[in-house]
């Protein structure tokens, strides 16, 4: 019953999306103006129906209704409740349903609260949102129906891949999806603005909270994903430039650029066509990312359920949405009037520089990710890894970080370096001192050294916008910016410290032997077999002590799975305030010794700490923006109210 109910809700929602698209587009023509009143209510109801469908799916998973194919394939009655819940979106169909649901709800929310934009632009935006949703509804209903029944009903479900039974992984994909969907709203705004040619500060202010929200989720998603890969893969690295990772990085780069260009548009009414372009690009990157992950077109270390057929469907959606948007851009962008002007040395100028560098980095990542595919088309087999990505992206990121230190201090419209040089002197001095210190004390490579120097200077410089302000009267948005920029410095410091100061030891050790790695003494105390549900493992007990301190036990495992036969390393981490000890157990060699791989990674945790700071900064900025918008709205209503009373 519930499944049919959910399916009916889904069909209805799709029909309403079609109606929303039709009414929204017709309402823009002189004859169809009467339809305008329909659009907003339809958008709200469409979102609610999507929610009903998604709740139905969650109920089915919680009840473990095995007559539904998706439940039978992905769940098991004995599974812990939280994984039953996560099972609802831990698969292709469910995650796509989550996508359309969130998208529908966003559209509904937009229809309810957004009153600042001219009505035609809103109608076009909602029609655009409906158009994108419609594609995903078609995808769900035609090729991946989550509510399909199974006959005969199996006695038990097939469960969820045990590797995916991880609390982090249960919430990682939805986090990214929320980011992607937020960017879809920005995309719809861009379409709406292109259709009506109303590109201005109001448009940027309406779009900004969505971009910010999306960006926060993407930041969190990438941070969490990176940490997951770090401790789960057992390779000691935290970023592999793997296609799946790049797929989440590219929308983030585009969203970061969009965030900043929208700020310029909101504050100064400049960068109009560029902001529109970025709105389209950011959502394109989300879809490209989804496509790359789901189609399995590129080989990845992160094994996902892939299906070329679904890949084709997503590609078709991608081609229609993005191709259409870019065509519209080509037709309309020339008629978007030019915005306000500004001098090269100004806040705008710095933000333009940031945008260009971010776009160039995005280009570098996109090229590198797709290159193996293009090369294969020409008959060569290649893989592209860190030797390409690291230096190439650094070429654009490093100058951007320098401008990041200076940019927030510049005034809008026109400024001079002379005015800010006094404030920047201190961070520059700190960076120079760091450079001397690093060059003197370590033999780090060029890039890590540059990273350390930039991190030191940036950490101080990012705080400067607070100088001379009454801290209690500083707007939340400024706090957010400062915190996010400081987070960038912190994360950069962690990355650079990891690659500059990490110590690695690979040894074959007998039980009872002690190995030194950095300041740590690691003693292999014993090796024991342990067994899990579908794996067996050899588990080492290591006693580790930091600079002769009290020993702490760590238990790395070398796990063997039976179906499919696969061996994984479960690393064991010891975290201190100043870094992490990372231990991996390998195989036993013929003479009875055990391979141990040990890393001492000073300040590596700053990477993810910085990521969280960046996201928190985004959150502060979002709160600041939303509350000031609300205040403005209330004030306007009060004025209207007063006028009305006076009129009476």
């Amino acid at each position, binding site marked *: 019953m519930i499944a049919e109910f959910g399916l009916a809700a889904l069909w209805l929602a799709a029909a309403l999306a079609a109606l929303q698209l039709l009414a929204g587009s017709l309402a823009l023509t002189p004859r169809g103006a009467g339809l305008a009143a329909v659009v907003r209510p339809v958008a709200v109801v469409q979102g609610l129906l999507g929610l009903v469908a998604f709740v139905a799916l969650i109920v089915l998973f919680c009840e473990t209704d095995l007559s539904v194919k998706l439940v039978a394939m992905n769940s098991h009655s004995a599974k812990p409740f939280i994984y039953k819940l996560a099972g609802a979106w831990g698969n292709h169909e469910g995650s796509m349903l989550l996508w359309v649901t969130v998208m529908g709800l966003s559209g509904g929310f937009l229809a309810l609260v957004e009153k600042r934009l001219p009505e035609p632009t809103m109608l076009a935006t909602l029609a655009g949102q409906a158009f994108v949703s419609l594609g995903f509804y078609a995808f769900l209903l035609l090729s991946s129906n989550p509510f399909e029944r199974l006959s005969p009903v199996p006695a038990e479900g097939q469960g969820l891949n045990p590797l995916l039974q991880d609390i982090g992984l249960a919430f990682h994909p939805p986090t990214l999806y929320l980011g992607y969907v937020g960017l879809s709203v920005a995309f719809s705004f861009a379409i709406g603005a292109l259709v009506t040619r109303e590109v201005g500060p109001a448009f940027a202010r309406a779009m900004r909270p969505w971009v910010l929200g999306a960006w926060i989720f993407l930041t969190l998603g990438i941070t969490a994903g990176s940490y997951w890969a770090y401790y789960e893969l057992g390779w000691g690295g935290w970023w592999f430039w793997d296609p799946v990772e790049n797929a989440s990085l590219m929308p983030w780069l585009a969203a970061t650029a969009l965030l900043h260009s929208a700020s310029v548009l909101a504050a100064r009414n400049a960068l109009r066509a*560029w902001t529109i372009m970025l709105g389209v690009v950011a959502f394109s990157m989300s879809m490209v990312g989804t496509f790359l992950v789901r189609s399995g077109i590129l*080989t990845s270390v992160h*094994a996902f359920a892939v299906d070329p057929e679904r890949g084709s469907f997503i590609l078709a959606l991608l081609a229609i949405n993005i191709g259409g948007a870019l065509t519209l851009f080509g037709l309309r962008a020339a008629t978007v009037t*030019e915005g306000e*002007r*500004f*001098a*090269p*040395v100004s806040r705008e100028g710095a933000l*333009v520089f940031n*945008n*260009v*560098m971010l*776009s*160039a*980095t995005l*280009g*570098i990542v996109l*090229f*590198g990710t797709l*290159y*193996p595919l293009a*090369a294969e088309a020409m008959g*060569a*087999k*290649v*893989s*592209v*890894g860190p*030797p*390409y990505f690291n*230096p*190439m992206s650094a*070429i*654009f990121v490093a100058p951007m970080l320098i401008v990041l230190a200076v940019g927030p201090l510049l005034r809008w419209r*026109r400024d*001079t370096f002379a005015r800010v040089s006094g404030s920047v002197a201190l961070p520059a001095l700190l960076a120079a001192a760091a450079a001397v210190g690093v060059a003197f004390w370590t033999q780090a490579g060029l890039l890590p050294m540059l990273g350390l120097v930039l991190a030191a200077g940036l950490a101080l410089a990012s705080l400067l916008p607070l100088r001379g302000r009454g801290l209690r009267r500083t707007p939340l948005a400024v706090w957010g910016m400062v915190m996010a920029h400081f987070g960038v410095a912190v994360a950069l410091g962690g990355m650079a410290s990891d690659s500059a100061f990490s110590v690695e030891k*690979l*040894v*074959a050790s007998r039980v009872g032997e002690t190995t030194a790695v950095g300041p740590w003494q690691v003693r292999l105390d014993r090796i024991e077999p342990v067994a899990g549900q579908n794996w067996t493992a050899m588990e080492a007990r290591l006693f580790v002590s930091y600079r002769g301190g009290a020993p702490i036990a760590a238990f790395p495992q070398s796990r*063997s799975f039976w179906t*499919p*036969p*696969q*061996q994984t*390393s479960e690393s064991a981490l010891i975290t201190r305030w100043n870094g992490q000890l990372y231990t*991996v157990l*390998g*195989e036993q*060699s*013929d*003479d009875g*010794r055990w*391979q141990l*791989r040990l890393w001492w990674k000073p300040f590596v945790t700053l990477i993810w700490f910085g990521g969280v700071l960046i996201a928190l900064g985004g959150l502060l900025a979002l709160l600041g923006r939303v509350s000031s918008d609300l205040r403005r709205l209330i004030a306007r209503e009060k004025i209207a109210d007063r006028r009305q009373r006076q009129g009476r």
Partner: protein
Amino acid sequence: MNTIKPKHQRLVLALVALAALVGAALLAIWGLRSQASYFYVPQELVASPPAPDRAVRLGGMVEQGSLKTEADGVTISFVVGDGKARVPVRFKGIVPSLFVEGSGVVAEGKRAADGTFVADNLLAKHDEKYVPREMQDMTAEQAKQVVAETR
């Protein structure tokens, strides 16, 4: 600094952006040509060796009886062959479990001056979910000769 006529600002901005993006594209192409690691089978590696400091991937069969562990217990050496050529490989690290003599392997690394291939990563996960794509073709096309050679 402010010599640009405001009239042309949009044009200048567009040109700057375009120049940066084209620069990025050119850099990417150059970087990919020099940094992408190509896939070799032993025969190709011997016939036209890559530059010594260039990262490549080498795919082939681990020859029977060639696998040796050195005294440190963590460095191994073995020979990768494809039926036409043989390449000695050295690897220091934790060996993937499905790596055994007579099985296929893809080694990532560089060719040293003495002709040894120094690997910094071995891919031997060899259930169908985890075959490197290069291996898929190789097993199909070359496995016959390879097996004849390594048996």
